[in-house]
Protein backbone atom coordinates (compact mmCIF):
# COMPACT_ATOMS: atom_id res chain seq x y z
CA UNK A 1 0.00 0.00 0.00
CA UNK A 2 2.73 2.43 -1.07
CA UNK A 3 0.28 5.10 -2.19
CA UNK A 4 -1.19 5.33 1.28
CA UNK A 5 2.00 6.81 2.71
CA UNK A 6 0.95 10.21 4.02
CA UNK A 7 2.05 13.29 2.11
CA UNK A 8 2.51 16.93 3.10
CA UNK A 9 2.02 19.72 0.57
CA UNK A 10 3.94 22.91 1.28
CA UNK A 11 2.86 26.07 -0.54
CA UNK A 12 4.93 29.19 -0.01
CA UNK A 13 6.18 31.74 -2.51
CA UNK A 14 9.47 32.14 -0.65
CA UNK A 15 11.94 29.53 -1.87
CA UNK A 16 14.08 29.52 1.27
CA UNK A 17 11.11 28.97 3.55
CA UNK A 18 9.72 26.33 1.22
CA UNK A 19 13.00 24.44 1.21
CA UNK A 20 13.39 24.79 4.97
CA UNK A 21 9.91 23.47 5.71
CA UNK A 22 10.35 20.66 3.22
CA UNK A 23 13.64 19.61 4.79
CA UNK A 24 12.17 19.83 8.28
CA UNK A 25 9.16 17.68 7.44
CA UNK A 26 11.22 15.17 5.47
CA UNK A 27 13.54 14.76 8.45
CA UNK A 28 10.74 12.98 10.34
CA UNK A 29 10.21 10.64 7.41
CA UNK A 30 7.19 12.20 5.77
CA UNK A 31 6.76 12.67 2.03
CA UNK A 32 6.74 16.34 1.00
CA UNK A 33 5.75 18.12 -2.18
CA UNK A 34 6.35 21.85 -2.56
CA UNK A 35 4.60 24.47 -4.67
CA UNK A 36 5.47 28.10 -5.22
CA UNK A 37 1.86 29.21 -5.67
CA UNK A 38 -1.72 28.19 -5.07
CA UNK A 39 -2.32 27.93 -8.82
CA UNK A 40 0.58 25.53 -9.17
CA UNK A 41 -0.90 23.34 -6.46
CA UNK A 42 -4.36 23.35 -8.04
CA UNK A 43 -2.83 22.36 -11.36
CA UNK A 44 -0.84 19.46 -9.93
CA UNK A 45 -1.95 15.84 -9.67
CA UNK A 46 -2.48 14.88 -6.06
CA UNK A 47 -1.84 11.28 -5.00
CA UNK A 48 -4.65 9.52 -3.20
CA UNK A 49 -3.19 9.37 0.31
CA UNK A 50 -3.69 10.93 3.72
CA UNK A 51 -2.36 14.44 3.38
CA UNK A 52 -2.23 17.89 4.79
CA UNK A 53 -1.47 21.31 3.43
CA UNK A 54 1.05 23.76 4.91
CA UNK A 55 -0.03 27.05 3.42
CA UNK A 56 1.35 30.59 3.52
CA UNK A 57 -1.51 33.07 3.97
CA UNK A 58 0.04 35.88 2.04
CA UNK A 59 1.08 35.06 -1.48
CA UNK A 60 0.94 36.99 -4.72
CA UNK A 61 -1.89 35.87 -6.94
CA UNK A 62 -4.27 33.48 -5.19
CA UNK A 63 -3.84 33.98 -1.43
CA UNK A 64 -3.89 31.17 1.12
CA UNK A 65 -7.41 32.05 2.22
CA UNK A 66 -8.60 32.10 -1.40
CA UNK A 67 -7.18 28.64 -1.93
CA UNK A 68 -8.86 27.36 1.21
CA UNK A 69 -12.27 28.49 -0.08
CA UNK A 70 -11.58 27.10 -3.54
CA UNK A 71 -10.70 23.70 -2.11
CA UNK A 72 -13.76 23.68 0.12
CA UNK A 73 -16.09 24.68 -2.72
CA UNK A 74 -14.43 22.15 -4.99
CA UNK A 75 -15.12 19.39 -2.46
CA UNK A 76 -11.46 18.69 -1.85
CA UNK A 77 -11.30 18.09 1.88
CA UNK A 78 -7.73 18.45 3.06
CA UNK A 79 -6.63 19.75 6.46
CA UNK A 80 -4.84 23.07 6.16
CA UNK A 81 -2.16 24.42 8.46
CA UNK A 82 -1.86 28.16 7.84
CA UNK A 83 1.38 30.00 8.31
CA UNK A 84 1.28 33.76 8.49
CA UNK A 85 3.84 36.51 8.94
CA UNK A 86 1.62 38.52 11.22
CA UNK A 87 -1.18 36.63 12.89
CA UNK A 88 -3.88 39.24 12.87
CA UNK A 89 -7.01 38.10 14.62
CA UNK A 90 -9.67 38.75 11.95
CA UNK A 91 -7.65 36.78 9.44
CA UNK A 92 -7.14 33.79 11.71
CA UNK A 93 -10.80 33.84 12.73
CA UNK A 94 -11.77 33.78 9.07
CA UNK A 95 -9.43 30.90 8.38
CA UNK A 96 -10.51 28.86 11.39
CA UNK A 97 -14.19 29.44 10.59
CA UNK A 98 -13.59 28.16 7.11
CA UNK A 99 -12.20 25.00 8.66
CA UNK A 100 -8.48 25.59 9.00
CA UNK A 101 -6.79 22.92 11.02
CA UNK A 102 -4.17 25.14 12.62
CA UNK A 103 -2.94 28.71 12.40
CA UNK A 104 0.77 29.29 13.11
CA UNK A 105 2.74 32.53 13.01
CA UNK A 106 6.09 32.97 11.37
CA UNK A 107 8.72 32.19 12.36
CA UNK A 108 7.22 28.79 13.20
CA UNK A 109 8.94 26.60 15.76
CA UNK A 110 9.91 23.37 14.07
CA UNK A 111 8.33 21.14 16.68
CA UNK A 112 5.06 23.08 16.62
CA UNK A 113 4.82 22.60 12.90
CA UNK A 114 5.67 18.90 13.03
CA UNK A 115 3.08 18.36 15.78
CA UNK A 116 0.49 20.19 13.75
CA UNK A 117 1.38 18.18 10.65
CA UNK A 118 1.11 14.86 12.48
CA UNK A 119 -2.23 15.81 13.99
CA UNK A 120 -3.55 17.02 10.65
CA UNK A 121 -2.50 13.81 8.93
CA UNK A 122 -4.07 11.68 11.65
CA UNK A 123 -7.28 13.63 11.32
CA UNK A 124 -7.21 13.31 7.54
CA UNK A 125 -6.68 9.59 7.89
CA UNK A 126 -9.76 9.29 10.11
CA UNK A 127 -11.80 11.46 7.81
CA UNK A 128 -10.72 9.47 4.76
CA UNK A 129 -11.74 6.27 6.47
CA UNK A 130 -15.07 7.74 7.39
CA UNK A 131 -15.57 9.03 3.88
CA UNK A 132 -14.74 5.59 2.49
CA UNK A 133 -17.32 4.00 4.78
CA UNK A 134 -19.94 6.52 3.81
CA UNK A 135 -19.14 6.00 0.15
CA UNK A 136 -19.55 2.26 0.59
CA UNK A 137 -22.86 2.66 2.42
CA UNK A 138 -24.06 5.10 -0.20
CA UNK A 139 -23.18 2.56 -2.89
CA UNK A 140 -25.23 -0.07 -1.18
CA UNK A 141 -28.19 2.23 -0.57
CA UNK A 142 -28.11 3.41 -4.16
CA UNK A 143 -28.55 -0.19 -5.38
CA UNK A 144 -32.07 -0.18 -3.91
CA UNK A 145 -35.09 0.08 -6.23
CA UNK A 146 -37.36 3.14 -5.80
CA UNK A 147 -39.97 0.97 -4.07
CA UNK A 148 -37.40 -0.46 -1.69
CA UNK A 149 -36.19 3.11 -0.94
CA UNK A 150 -39.74 4.13 0.00
CA UNK A 151 -40.00 1.14 2.32
CA UNK A 152 -36.57 1.93 3.77
CA UNK A 153 -37.53 5.53 4.59
CA UNK A 154 -40.63 4.41 6.46
CA UNK A 155 -38.83 1.59 8.29
CA UNK A 156 -36.17 4.01 9.45
CA UNK A 157 -38.87 6.45 10.52
CA UNK A 158 -40.00 3.68 12.93
CA UNK A 159 -43.26 2.55 11.27
CA UNK A 160 -44.53 -1.03 11.66
CA UNK A 161 -44.96 -3.28 8.63
CA UNK A 162 -48.74 -2.94 8.82
CA UNK A 163 -48.53 0.88 8.86
CA UNK A 164 -46.09 0.84 5.93
CA UNK A 165 -48.43 -1.44 3.97
CA UNK A 166 -51.35 0.93 4.61
CA UNK A 167 -49.39 4.00 3.66
CA UNK A 168 -47.90 2.59 0.47
CA UNK A 169 -51.09 0.68 -0.46
CA UNK A 170 -49.57 -2.78 -0.63
CA UNK A 171 -49.91 -6.01 1.28
CA UNK A 172 -48.00 -6.65 4.46
CA UNK A 173 -46.36 -9.64 2.75
CA UNK A 174 -44.98 -7.45 -0.03
CA UNK A 175 -43.61 -5.02 2.56
CA UNK A 176 -41.87 -7.93 4.27
CA UNK A 177 -40.27 -9.06 0.99
CA UNK A 178 -39.03 -5.49 0.20
CA UNK A 179 -37.74 -5.19 3.71
CA UNK A 180 -35.78 -8.42 3.43
CA UNK A 181 -34.23 -7.16 0.16
CA UNK A 182 -33.29 -3.87 1.83
CA UNK A 183 -31.60 -5.71 4.75
CA UNK A 184 -29.74 -7.92 2.30
CA UNK A 185 -28.61 -5.20 -0.11
CA UNK A 186 -27.41 -2.83 2.64
CA UNK A 187 -25.79 -5.69 4.52
CA UNK A 188 -27.49 -4.59 7.72
CA UNK A 189 -27.19 -7.03 10.63
CA UNK A 190 -30.18 -5.64 12.43
CA UNK A 191 -32.79 -2.93 12.26
CA UNK A 192 -30.63 -0.81 14.59
CA UNK A 193 -27.65 -1.16 12.22
CA UNK A 194 -29.78 -0.12 9.26
CA UNK A 195 -31.05 2.94 11.09
CA UNK A 196 -27.51 3.89 12.08
CA UNK A 197 -26.29 3.59 8.49
CA UNK A 198 -29.18 5.65 7.18
CA UNK A 199 -28.51 8.38 9.78
CA UNK A 200 -24.82 8.37 8.96
CA UNK A 201 -25.52 8.83 5.29
CA UNK A 202 -28.00 11.59 5.93
CA UNK A 203 -25.54 13.38 8.21
CA UNK A 204 -22.71 13.19 5.69
CA UNK A 205 -24.85 14.42 2.78
CA UNK A 206 -26.08 17.31 4.91
CA UNK A 207 -22.46 18.25 5.52
Amino acid at each position, binding site marked *: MKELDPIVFVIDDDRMIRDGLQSLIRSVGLRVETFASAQEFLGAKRPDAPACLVLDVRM*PGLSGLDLQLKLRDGGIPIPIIFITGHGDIPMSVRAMKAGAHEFLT*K*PVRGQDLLDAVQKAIASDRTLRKERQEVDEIRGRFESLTPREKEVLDLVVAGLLNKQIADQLGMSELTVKTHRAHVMEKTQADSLAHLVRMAEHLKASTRK
Partner: protein
Amino acid sequence: MRIDITAAVRSALFRYGLAVGLVFLALLASMALQDSIGNPFWFFFSAAVILSTWLGGTGPGWLAVICSTLAVMYYFTPPLRSFAVTPRELPYFVTFVACEIGVTQLISWRRRTEDALRQARDELEVRVAERTAELKRQMAEQRRIEEALQATRAELTRAARITTIGELTASIAHEVNQPLAAVVANADACVAWLSREKPDLAEARSAAGRATEGATRASEVIARIRSLITKATPEKSKVQINQVIEQTAALAEGQAARNQVVIKLELSPDLPVVFGDSIQFQQVILNLVVNGIEAMTCITDRPRILTLRTEPEDKGQVRVSVQDSGVGLNEEVMRRLFEPFFTTRAKGMGMGLSISRSIIEAHGGRLWAEPNGSGGASFQFTLPSEDGPAS
Protein backbone atom coordinates in the same frame (compact mmCIF):
# COMPACT_ATOMS: atom_id res chain seq x y z
CA MET B 1 42.58 109.58 30.06
CA ARG B 2 45.25 111.05 32.34
CA ILE B 3 47.92 110.00 29.94
CA ASP B 4 46.03 111.80 27.19
CA ILE B 5 45.82 115.01 29.24
CA THR B 6 49.54 114.93 30.06
CA ALA B 7 50.31 114.33 26.44
CA ALA B 8 48.08 117.27 25.41
CA VAL B 9 49.76 119.59 27.95
CA ARG B 10 53.20 118.49 26.79
CA SER B 11 52.28 119.07 23.20
CA ALA B 12 50.90 122.56 24.03
CA LEU B 13 54.04 123.49 25.98
CA PHE B 14 56.16 122.32 23.09
CA ARG B 15 54.17 124.30 20.54
CA TYR B 16 54.12 127.54 22.58
CA GLY B 17 57.79 127.05 23.50
CA LEU B 18 58.58 126.59 19.86
CA ALA B 19 56.86 129.92 19.06
CA VAL B 20 58.87 131.75 21.74
CA GLY B 21 62.08 130.03 20.60
CA LEU B 22 61.52 130.92 16.96
CA VAL B 23 60.85 134.58 17.83
CA PHE B 24 64.01 134.56 19.92
CA LEU B 25 66.00 133.15 17.01
CA ALA B 26 64.49 135.79 14.71
CA LEU B 27 65.51 138.46 17.20
CA LEU B 28 69.10 137.17 17.31
CA ALA B 29 69.30 136.95 13.54
CA SER B 30 67.83 140.44 13.11
CA MET B 31 70.28 141.91 15.57
CA ALA B 32 73.19 140.16 13.88
CA LEU B 33 72.29 141.43 10.42
CA GLN B 34 71.02 144.88 11.49
CA ASP B 35 74.07 146.69 10.24
CA SER B 36 74.29 145.09 6.81
CA ILE B 37 70.62 145.01 5.74
CA GLY B 38 67.98 147.69 6.42
CA ASN B 39 65.18 146.54 8.73
CA PRO B 40 65.92 142.78 8.51
CA PHE B 41 63.45 142.04 11.34
CA TRP B 42 60.63 142.09 8.80
CA PHE B 43 61.77 138.86 7.22
CA PHE B 44 62.91 137.05 10.31
CA PHE B 45 59.88 137.84 12.49
CA SER B 46 57.54 137.11 9.65
CA ALA B 47 59.28 133.78 9.19
CA ALA B 48 59.01 133.05 12.94
CA VAL B 49 55.26 133.86 12.90
CA ILE B 50 54.67 131.75 9.78
CA LEU B 51 56.55 128.76 11.21
CA SER B 52 54.96 129.07 14.67
CA THR B 53 51.48 129.20 13.19
CA TRP B 54 52.16 126.42 10.70
CA LEU B 55 53.79 124.10 13.16
CA GLY B 56 52.06 125.10 16.40
CA GLY B 57 48.62 126.32 15.39
CA THR B 58 46.63 129.51 16.00
CA GLY B 59 47.58 129.97 19.70
CA PRO B 60 51.35 129.77 19.21
CA GLY B 61 50.89 131.95 16.11
CA TRP B 62 49.27 134.70 18.21
CA LEU B 63 52.01 134.31 20.84
CA ALA B 64 54.66 134.71 18.13
CA VAL B 65 52.90 137.84 16.86
CA ILE B 66 52.79 139.34 20.37
CA CYS B 67 56.42 138.45 21.13
CA SER B 68 57.53 139.77 17.74
CA THR B 69 55.64 143.02 18.26
CA LEU B 70 57.18 143.50 21.70
CA ALA B 71 60.66 142.64 20.39
CA VAL B 72 60.36 145.03 17.43
CA MET B 73 58.90 147.72 19.73
CA TYR B 74 61.78 147.29 22.16
CA TYR B 75 64.74 146.78 19.89
CA PHE B 76 64.01 148.19 16.47
CA THR B 77 61.67 151.18 16.73
CA PRO B 78 62.87 154.43 18.21
CA PRO B 79 63.12 155.16 20.93
CA LEU B 80 65.26 152.02 21.17
CA ARG B 81 65.34 149.96 24.41
CA SER B 82 61.84 151.11 25.24
CA PHE B 83 58.27 149.87 24.56
CA ALA B 84 57.27 153.30 23.46
CA VAL B 85 56.81 154.17 19.79
CA THR B 86 57.37 157.64 18.39
CA PRO B 87 54.45 159.07 16.43
CA ARG B 88 56.66 159.27 13.34
CA GLU B 89 57.35 155.57 13.48
CA LEU B 90 53.80 154.62 14.36
CA PRO B 91 52.42 153.96 10.82
CA TYR B 92 55.42 151.84 9.98
CA PHE B 93 55.07 149.87 13.19
CA VAL B 94 51.32 149.43 12.80
CA THR B 95 51.85 148.18 9.24
CA PHE B 96 54.32 145.64 10.57
CA VAL B 97 51.90 144.45 13.27
CA ALA B 98 49.01 144.31 10.81
CA CYS B 99 51.11 142.29 8.37
CA GLU B 100 52.12 139.88 11.09
CA ILE B 101 48.49 139.46 12.18
CA GLY B 102 47.46 139.00 8.54
CA VAL B 103 50.13 136.36 8.01
CA THR B 104 49.21 134.41 11.13
CA GLN B 105 45.49 134.55 10.25
CA LEU B 106 46.15 133.37 6.72
CA ILE B 107 48.43 130.57 7.78
CA SER B 108 46.13 129.52 10.62
CA TRP B 109 43.16 129.49 8.20
CA ARG B 110 45.15 127.34 5.78
CA ARG B 111 46.10 125.06 8.60
CA ARG B 112 42.57 124.80 9.91
CA THR B 113 41.28 123.98 6.44
CA GLU B 114 43.90 121.32 6.03
CA ASP B 115 43.18 119.93 9.50
CA ALA B 116 39.48 119.84 8.75
CA LEU B 117 40.21 118.06 5.52
CA ARG B 118 42.48 115.56 7.25
CA GLN B 119 39.95 115.05 9.99
CA ALA B 120 37.20 114.52 7.44
CA ARG B 121 39.37 111.97 5.66
CA ASP B 122 40.19 110.21 8.91
CA GLU B 123 36.54 110.12 9.87
CA LEU B 124 35.68 108.78 6.49
CA GLU B 125 38.24 106.03 6.91
CA VAL B 126 36.86 105.13 10.31
CA ARG B 127 33.35 105.04 8.93
CA VAL B 128 34.45 102.87 6.04
CA ALA B 129 36.17 100.49 8.47
CA GLU B 130 33.07 100.39 10.67
CA ARG B 131 30.82 99.77 7.69
CA THR B 132 33.14 97.02 6.43
CA ALA B 133 33.07 95.31 9.82
CA GLU B 134 29.29 95.66 9.87
CA LEU B 135 29.03 94.10 6.43
CA LYS B 136 31.33 91.27 7.43
CA ARG B 137 29.18 90.62 10.47
CA GLN B 138 26.04 90.69 8.36
CA MET B 139 27.59 88.28 5.88
CA ALA B 140 28.60 85.91 8.67
CA GLU B 141 25.07 86.11 10.03
CA GLN B 142 23.67 85.50 6.57
CA ARG B 143 25.94 82.49 6.15
CA ARG B 144 24.92 81.16 9.55
CA ILE B 145 21.24 81.55 8.65
CA GLU B 146 21.83 79.84 5.33
CA GLU B 147 23.62 76.97 7.03
CA ALA B 148 20.80 76.62 9.54
CA LEU B 149 18.32 76.67 6.68
CA GLN B 150 20.31 74.04 4.85
CA ALA B 151 20.39 71.85 7.96
CA THR B 152 16.67 72.32 8.51
CA ARG B 153 15.96 71.44 4.89
CA ALA B 154 18.11 68.30 5.17
CA GLU B 155 16.33 67.37 8.39
CA LEU B 156 12.93 67.94 6.80
CA THR B 157 13.94 65.85 3.82
CA ARG B 158 15.00 63.07 6.14
CA ALA B 159 11.76 63.39 8.11
CA ALA B 160 9.77 63.03 4.90
CA ARG B 161 11.89 60.02 4.01
CA ILE B 162 11.16 58.43 7.36
CA THR B 163 7.46 59.18 6.91
CA THR B 164 7.52 57.41 3.55
CA ILE B 165 9.30 54.48 5.11
CA GLY B 166 6.79 54.58 7.94
CA GLU B 167 4.10 53.84 5.40
CA LEU B 168 6.05 50.75 4.47
CA THR B 169 6.51 49.54 8.04
CA ALA B 170 4.19 46.58 7.71
CA SER B 171 5.81 45.33 4.53
CA ILE B 172 9.30 46.00 5.84
CA ALA B 173 8.50 43.97 8.94
CA HIS B 174 7.37 41.22 6.61
CA GLU B 175 10.49 41.67 4.53
CA VAL B 176 12.67 41.07 7.60
CA ASN B 177 10.47 38.43 9.15
CA GLN B 178 10.37 36.34 6.00
CA PRO B 179 14.09 35.50 5.87
CA LEU B 180 14.08 35.04 9.65
CA ALA B 181 11.31 32.48 9.26
CA ALA B 182 13.49 30.75 6.69
CA VAL B 183 16.40 30.82 9.14
CA VAL B 184 14.30 29.22 11.88
CA ALA B 185 12.79 26.57 9.60
CA ASN B 186 16.17 25.61 8.18
CA ALA B 187 17.94 25.65 11.53
CA ASP B 188 15.21 23.43 12.98
CA ALA B 189 15.53 21.12 10.00
CA CYS B 190 19.30 21.00 10.47
CA VAL B 191 18.90 20.02 14.11
CA ALA B 192 16.29 17.43 13.17
CA TRP B 193 18.61 15.82 10.60
CA LEU B 194 21.44 15.73 13.12
CA SER B 195 19.22 14.25 15.84
CA ARG B 196 18.17 11.27 13.78
CA GLU B 197 19.38 7.87 14.85
CA LYS B 198 21.73 7.95 11.88
CA PRO B 199 22.46 11.68 11.42
CA ASP B 200 22.16 12.80 7.82
CA LEU B 201 25.05 15.21 7.44
CA ALA B 202 24.39 16.13 3.83
CA GLU B 203 20.83 17.21 4.61
CA ALA B 204 21.94 19.02 7.75
CA ARG B 205 24.64 20.85 5.82
CA SER B 206 22.32 22.08 3.10
CA ALA B 207 19.75 23.18 5.71
CA ALA B 208 22.45 25.11 7.59
CA GLY B 209 23.51 26.70 4.29
CA ARG B 210 19.97 27.91 3.67
CA ALA B 211 19.80 29.28 7.22
CA THR B 212 22.90 31.36 6.54
CA GLU B 213 21.44 32.54 3.27
CA GLY B 214 18.30 33.67 5.08
CA ALA B 215 20.24 35.54 7.74
CA THR B 216 22.25 37.31 5.06
CA ARG B 217 19.09 38.33 3.29
CA ALA B 218 17.60 39.72 6.52
CA SER B 219 20.69 41.80 7.19
CA GLU B 220 20.61 43.13 3.63
CA VAL B 221 17.06 44.32 4.10
CA ILE B 222 18.03 46.07 7.33
CA ALA B 223 21.06 47.69 5.73
CA ARG B 224 18.87 49.02 2.92
CA ILE B 225 16.49 50.65 5.36
CA ARG B 226 19.16 51.91 7.70
CA SER B 227 20.91 53.86 4.98
CA LEU B 228 17.59 55.52 4.19
CA ILE B 229 16.79 56.66 7.71
CA THR B 230 20.12 57.59 9.27
CA LYS B 231 21.84 59.94 6.88
CA ALA B 232 20.64 63.57 6.83
CA THR B 233 23.45 65.41 5.07
CA PRO B 234 23.46 64.82 1.34
CA GLU B 235 26.58 63.38 -0.26
CA LYS B 236 27.04 63.71 -3.97
CA SER B 237 28.66 61.06 -6.08
CA LYS B 238 28.29 59.31 -9.41
CA VAL B 239 25.01 57.44 -9.50
CA GLN B 240 23.69 54.72 -11.79
CA ILE B 241 20.01 55.55 -11.67
CA ASN B 242 18.98 52.03 -12.75
CA GLN B 243 20.64 50.57 -9.66
CA VAL B 244 18.81 53.04 -7.43
CA ILE B 245 15.53 52.03 -9.05
CA GLU B 246 16.19 48.33 -8.59
CA GLN B 247 16.98 48.84 -4.89
CA THR B 248 13.91 50.98 -4.38
CA ALA B 249 11.68 48.48 -6.15
CA ALA B 250 13.03 45.74 -3.87
CA LEU B 251 12.18 47.89 -0.86
CA ALA B 252 8.62 48.48 -2.05
CA GLU B 253 8.08 44.93 -3.30
CA GLY B 254 6.34 43.82 -0.12
CA GLN B 255 4.06 46.83 -0.05
CA ALA B 256 3.15 46.23 -3.68
CA ALA B 257 2.42 42.54 -3.09
CA ARG B 258 0.18 43.40 -0.14
CA ASN B 259 -1.87 45.59 -2.41
CA GLN B 260 -1.83 43.14 -5.34
CA VAL B 261 0.28 45.55 -7.36
CA VAL B 262 2.80 44.26 -9.85
CA ILE B 263 5.93 46.36 -10.21
CA LYS B 264 7.36 46.27 -13.74
CA LEU B 265 10.85 47.55 -14.50
CA GLU B 266 11.64 48.80 -17.99
CA LEU B 267 15.17 50.08 -17.57
CA SER B 268 17.21 51.30 -20.50
CA PRO B 269 20.63 49.63 -20.47
CA ASP B 270 22.57 52.57 -21.91
CA LEU B 271 22.02 55.51 -19.63
CA PRO B 272 24.57 58.16 -18.79
CA VAL B 273 25.78 58.34 -15.20
CA VAL B 274 24.18 61.13 -13.17
CA PHE B 275 25.75 63.05 -10.31
CA GLY B 276 23.98 63.51 -7.00
CA ASP B 277 22.88 62.01 -3.72
CA SER B 278 21.67 58.46 -4.31
CA ILE B 279 19.73 58.33 -1.04
CA GLN B 280 17.75 61.40 -2.09
CA PHE B 281 17.09 59.88 -5.51
CA GLN B 282 15.91 56.74 -3.77
CA GLN B 283 13.65 58.88 -1.61
CA VAL B 284 12.07 60.53 -4.65
CA ILE B 285 11.51 57.22 -6.41
CA LEU B 286 10.22 55.51 -3.27
CA ASN B 287 7.82 58.38 -2.76
CA LEU B 288 6.49 58.13 -6.30
CA VAL B 289 6.21 54.34 -6.00
CA VAL B 290 4.30 54.50 -2.71
CA ASN B 291 1.99 57.16 -4.18
CA GLY B 292 1.44 54.98 -7.23
CA ILE B 293 0.58 51.92 -5.17
CA GLU B 294 -1.75 54.04 -3.05
CA ALA B 295 -3.51 55.33 -6.16
CA MET B 296 -4.35 51.79 -7.25
CA THR B 297 -5.72 50.31 -4.03
CA CYS B 298 -9.34 50.83 -5.05
CA ILE B 299 -8.92 49.73 -8.67
CA THR B 300 -10.72 46.46 -9.35
CA ASP B 301 -11.61 46.53 -13.05
CA ARG B 302 -8.05 46.43 -14.41
CA PRO B 303 -4.67 45.02 -13.43
CA ARG B 304 -2.74 47.07 -10.89
CA ILE B 305 0.55 47.67 -12.62
CA LEU B 306 3.26 50.11 -11.61
CA THR B 307 5.83 50.62 -14.34
CA LEU B 308 9.23 52.11 -13.55
CA ARG B 309 10.93 53.21 -16.74
CA THR B 310 14.22 54.87 -17.55
CA GLU B 311 15.28 56.28 -20.90
CA PRO B 312 17.98 58.57 -22.24
CA GLU B 313 16.80 62.07 -23.12
CA ASP B 314 18.11 64.89 -25.31
CA LYS B 315 21.19 66.80 -24.17
CA GLY B 316 22.57 63.86 -22.25
CA GLN B 317 19.69 63.85 -19.76
CA VAL B 318 18.11 60.85 -18.09
CA ARG B 319 14.35 60.50 -17.79
CA VAL B 320 12.71 58.39 -15.10
CA SER B 321 8.98 57.75 -15.11
CA VAL B 322 6.72 56.05 -12.61
CA GLN B 323 3.44 55.11 -14.23
CA ASP B 324 0.42 53.71 -12.43
CA SER B 325 -2.95 52.42 -13.56
CA GLY B 326 -4.72 54.06 -10.64
CA VAL B 327 -7.47 56.61 -10.14
CA GLY B 328 -5.62 59.37 -11.96
CA LEU B 329 -5.50 63.08 -11.19
CA ASN B 330 -8.38 65.50 -11.46
CA GLU B 331 -7.84 69.14 -12.35
CA GLU B 332 -7.87 70.41 -8.78
CA VAL B 333 -5.38 67.79 -7.64
CA MET B 334 -3.22 68.36 -10.70
CA ARG B 335 -3.02 72.06 -9.92
CA ARG B 336 -2.10 71.68 -6.24
CA LEU B 337 -0.08 68.47 -6.45
CA PHE B 338 3.27 70.00 -5.58
CA GLU B 339 2.05 72.41 -2.91
CA PRO B 340 3.47 71.73 0.55
CA PHE B 341 0.98 70.06 2.90
CA PHE B 342 -1.40 69.23 0.05
CA THR B 343 -2.54 65.64 0.29
CA THR B 344 -5.43 63.48 -0.86
CA ARG B 345 -4.79 60.85 1.77
CA ALA B 346 -6.20 60.72 5.26
CA LYS B 347 -2.85 59.97 6.84
CA GLY B 348 -0.58 61.83 4.43
CA MET B 349 1.61 64.73 5.48
CA GLY B 350 1.53 66.28 2.01
CA MET B 351 5.26 66.95 1.88
CA GLY B 352 6.38 64.05 -0.29
CA LEU B 353 5.95 65.54 -3.74
CA SER B 354 6.97 69.03 -2.78
CA ILE B 355 10.19 67.70 -1.26
CA SER B 356 10.73 65.36 -4.19
CA ARG B 357 10.46 68.25 -6.59
CA SER B 358 12.91 70.36 -4.58
CA ILE B 359 15.36 67.45 -4.50
CA ILE B 360 15.19 67.01 -8.26
CA GLU B 361 15.44 70.74 -8.91
CA ALA B 362 18.43 71.00 -6.58
CA HIS B 363 20.07 68.43 -8.85
CA GLY B 364 19.32 70.53 -11.91
CA GLY B 365 16.41 68.41 -13.07
CA ARG B 366 12.65 68.73 -13.45
CA LEU B 367 9.75 66.74 -11.91
CA TRP B 368 6.22 66.80 -13.24
CA ALA B 369 3.04 64.76 -13.48
CA GLU B 370 0.76 63.97 -16.37
CA PRO B 371 -2.33 61.82 -16.81
CA ASN B 372 -2.02 58.57 -18.76
CA GLY B 373 -4.07 58.04 -21.85
CA SER B 374 -5.32 54.74 -20.45
CA GLY B 375 -6.19 55.98 -16.95
CA GLY B 376 -3.88 56.52 -14.02
CA ALA B 377 -1.05 58.99 -13.75
CA SER B 378 2.56 59.17 -14.73
CA PHE B 379 5.16 61.01 -12.68
CA GLN B 380 8.36 61.79 -14.47
CA PHE B 381 11.61 63.50 -13.76
CA THR B 382 14.72 64.30 -15.70
CA LEU B 383 18.26 64.62 -14.42
CA PRO B 384 21.26 66.04 -16.21
CA SER B 385 24.05 63.54 -16.79
CA GLU B 386 27.33 63.86 -14.95
CA ASP B 387 29.06 65.51 -17.91
CA GLY B 388 26.34 68.14 -18.05
CA PRO B 389 24.20 69.16 -21.00
CA ALA B 390 27.20 70.32 -23.04
CA SER B 391 28.35 66.89 -24.16
